[in-house]
């Protein structure tokens, strides 16, 4: 698929999706609530994914350095591994900070059942 067609198709999908959300407007407060719930759900999902991506790369560098050091000097293997484990724990802490924020955010999404029923009824199903 060419780049232009990918952009075209994805923009059509996005516009249709947002149109159906806009049709669920029962009052300005409800619409604002819908958008904020949308934002919270997207953020909590993508936030942890991006954090894990960066953490994986960082830990890859750490383990790479440790393995090369051990390959050059196998006798220092124990000390190198100890330092590597400590470094990995410190890098992993950054991903944990993001995980806590995402857990906090996903706890703020309310129960979507009644809202979905109201949307379906307003469309006429």
């Amino acid at each position, binding site marked *: 698929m060419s780049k232009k067609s990918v952009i075209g198709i994805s923009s059509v999908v996005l516009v249709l999706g947002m149109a159906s959300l806009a049709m669920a407007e029962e009052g300005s407060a409800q619409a604002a609530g819908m958008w904020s719930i949308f934002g919270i759900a997207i953020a909590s999902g993508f936030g942890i994914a991006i954090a894990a991506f960066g953490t994986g790369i960082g830990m890859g560098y750490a383990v790479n350095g440790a393995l090369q050091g051990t390959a050059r000097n196998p006798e220092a293997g124990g000390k190198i591994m100890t330092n590597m484990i400590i470094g990995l*724990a410190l890098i*992993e*802490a950054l991903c*944990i900070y993001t995980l*806590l924020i995402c857990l906090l955010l996903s706890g703020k999404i309310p129960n979507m059942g009644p809202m979905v029923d109201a949307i379906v009824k307003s469309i006429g199903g």
Partner: protein
Amino acid sequence: MVHHYYFLNEIFSALGLGHFAHKYQHVVHSWFVMLIMIIGAFFLARGIQMFPRKGQNFLEIIVDGLENFMVEITGPEGRAFFPYIATIFLYIFVSNLIGLIPGFFSPTANYNTTLSIAICTFVLTHVIGIKFHGAKYIKHFLGPSLALAPLVFVIEMIGHLARVMSLSIRLFGNIFGKETIIGMLFGLAGLFLAPLPMLFLGVLVSFIQAVVFMLLSIVYFSIAMEEAH
């Protein structure tokens, strides 16, 4: 919300304090950890002899290993703070481990416990700095030149507060995540021996997080003890 079954809550309910135990689970379980450590130390260190027997041998290996680890980083003048460092390591390690036993809750899986330990370390860092350098401890916060002093002071303050936050959130996040995942895997009721890999990882994470907390406390103490740059 999932309702957990804890042994200590049942014991406290029998005494009529069930509501207190349910509301302050982490406090009740940290009392239990303290009880384990005090009783363990009492029985393992009774009758100290020159040629150590089993219990004393076990404790000697742990204490000796920790002391060498600490003196390697801080130098010989750091020996005075070794009891605090060893207490932190053993308390956090035992607290993390009892969460793996069904029916108990890790006190470190609650942010209040980890924040209190991090604040103790933070306060002790400054006490050490004042004790070693007196009033000249303020030079640690002023940076290399006097012209930049206000800016560097603000940055150093933020850095110190960030230390407290990072210590506490790192420990809390790891242990809370471990407890949550093991709780969810127990819900599978043994299908594919599901909890076993996570339990093994839980033991590893408990040990490593205790070591990292101890190591960072040692590093902060040695930074406060050395000369200002």
